[in-house]
């Protein structure tokens, strides 16, 4: 299967990084590099990005999102939780502020629309996994999602159950979205099975497997714009806060500039966005900024690819 090929490469990528340590130039790059494409080769295609919390997509794959949109994709964003637990306000006000900032962040990155599932943060085990799967399948079918971007459901040492649950639900929904007998009643609403053919799975922890490194050098400003909208969580206002704190001490930092907006952006650039030269495992790909994924190409199965290869080398004239 195509997936096995991806995984075997990824094992090499991760083991190489792990054994030689972060930033060790001796580790050979084995993951595929996805460079910016010329023009808009993905025009007409749709991707859906799914995350549990306001700041996960911008932080872990905002650059790739901006790149794919630039290359012609139409993108949609799904948030699974209501983010009620973070923000320092009451539950209801945390939900309200996150809701508003989520829309602003989506607009900053260029998403066409946002779907909110509003499950309660940190209470994912209350929920029926099949219900969430059913809702995601509905969204993937309705939008005709060709590509889905979400968490790697096999992230190591991920403490946040919302992320693991979302990653697993997305993986299952992608698998079943094209199947006639899963949620067949959606046809009654004019929503028909549609196969997801590519997946980008990001990890929140270094050391996890990856087989694709995406060059986001040309879209880094878009990523910074998106993170800057994540104010209640995600560090979007930390630059301004630091500038104010230093000013109270009679100090300043040149990189934070002369106003809050500049301070926020530069804080994000210098302290939240690590250039790939310092990010474990992808420092030896020669890219200024990069994001890494486990990428799955389901456009053809391993069997189909094997048959094609075999035909190329073995087919004879009649």
């Amino acid at each position, binding site marked *: 299967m195509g997936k096995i090929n991806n995984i075997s490469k990824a094992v090499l990528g991760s083991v190489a990084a792990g054994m030689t340590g972060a930033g060790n130039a001796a580790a050979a790059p084995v993951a595929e590099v996805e460079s910016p494409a010329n023009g808009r080769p993905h025009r007409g295609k749709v991707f859906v990005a799914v995350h549990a919390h306001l700041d996960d997509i911008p932080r872990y794959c905002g650059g790739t999102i901006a790149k794919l949109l630039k290359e012609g994709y139409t993108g949609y964003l799904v948030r699974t939780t209501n983010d009620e637990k973070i923000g320092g306000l009451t539950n209801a006000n945390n939900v309200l502020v996150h809701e508003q900032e989520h829309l602003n962040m989506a607009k900053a990155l260029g998403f066409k629309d946002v*779907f909110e599932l509003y499950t309660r943060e940190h209470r994912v085990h209350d929920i029926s996994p099949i219900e969430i799967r059913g*809702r995601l399948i509905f969204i993937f079918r309705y939008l005709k999602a060709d590509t889905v971007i979400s968490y790697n459901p096999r992230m190591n040492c991920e403490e946040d159950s919302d992320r693991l649950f979302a990653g697993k639900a997305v993986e299952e929904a992608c698998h079943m979205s094209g199947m006639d007998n899963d949620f*067949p*009643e959606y046809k*009654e*609403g004019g929503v028909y099975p549609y196969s997801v053919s590519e997946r980008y799975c990001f990890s929140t922890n270094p050391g996890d497997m990856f087989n694709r490194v995406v060059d986001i050098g040309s879209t880094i400003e878009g990523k910074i714009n998106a993170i800057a909208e994540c104010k209640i969580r995600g560090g979007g206002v930390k630059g301004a806060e630091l500038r104010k704190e230093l000013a109270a001490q009679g100090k300043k930092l040149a990189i934070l500039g002369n106003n809050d907006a500049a301070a926020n952006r530069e804080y994000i650039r210098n302290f939240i966005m690590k250039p790939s030269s310092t990010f474990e495992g992808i420092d030896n790909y020669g890219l200024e900024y990069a994001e890494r994924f486990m990428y799955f190409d389901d456009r053809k199965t391993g069997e189909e690819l094997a048959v094609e290869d075999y035909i190329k080398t073995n087919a004879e004239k009649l």
Partner: protein
Amino acid sequence: MERRKFFGSTLAGGALLGSKSARAQTKQSDSFAKTKKSNPFFKVDYEMSGYNPFSISSDVIFDKDLVIEHAVKGQPHKGKVFVAIQPHADDIPLYCSGLCSKLVNEGYTGHIIRMTNEDMSGRGTVGEGMAYIELHDANIAKACGMEKSIDLNFSKHRLETVHIQELKMRLVFLFRALKVDTVITFDPYNSYEENPDHWMTAYATMPACWHAGGGKEYPEFRKAGIDGHSVREKYYYPRSPQGHNIINRIVDISDVIDQKVKANIASVNFGPAGINGSVLRQRLAQEGKRLPILGNTDDEANFNYIKDLLMEDWHALGKEFGLEYAEAYHYIGPDYDGYSSISEYVEKNAVPLK
């Protein structure tokens, strides 16, 4: 399956239920009025036939404002939609195919929703049973004049392991997509109901009827153009093996009894009806006997077996209300609209400022 013991019917004055929801075309029967005058509680004793192990409950409380719903001429309900929700493929034919046929005749578009895949039913292997029963859904729908059957395919007798939120979500979707006005299913308060598929179906249907009209439930359906749609009427059919059902509506199915019989014939390979008439006729023939009511052909045997034997309890119920055949329900009509009452009050009582 052993037939449960049924007590004689009991009567008690029930609470006033939904008086504002009575359909315009109903009236109470004379026999009911007479009975009510002679006894403070509504008492009806009718003899269950004992032929049908899955008949209606005999231990019911008849609401003192019981309504009898007769057939209505013309098609006053044209444009409206009902769904009949059954956990199993023989539930609608047995319990409510008379009402389904009547509503279709009166203009409704009807659909069946079948919750389980019947993997525990039917003759042959699991796969054979499932495939055979799946074919019959279409025949059952056709017999009642309904458009189609939508199968949700949960595993039979395991519905209580399914998260009720998933059941609700899928029903909410269907109620919205099909724009359902009226729902028919098991009474959620069937006492001592042993079959988990029955009560899970009913428990999930109740809130789904309400949430289908909701603004913030499943907003992604709205984004796909499938807007909220409130279910306005529910007919719940009673099946308490023991304990009481509160019945507030008797539906006259005299005109559609033959359609009910045909719907039950379509339940081949499982349930008490189907082709059991012809099977009995053939068995008796092998023993050198015959039963006159089974007629001279297999088709006659199937039809007459069901009509003369299995439908006897619905015939007995009907006779108590001056009808040939009747089905009993707990009916819940459109929600009480407090706002229009307030508007009326304002209209009547508002006075000039000075």
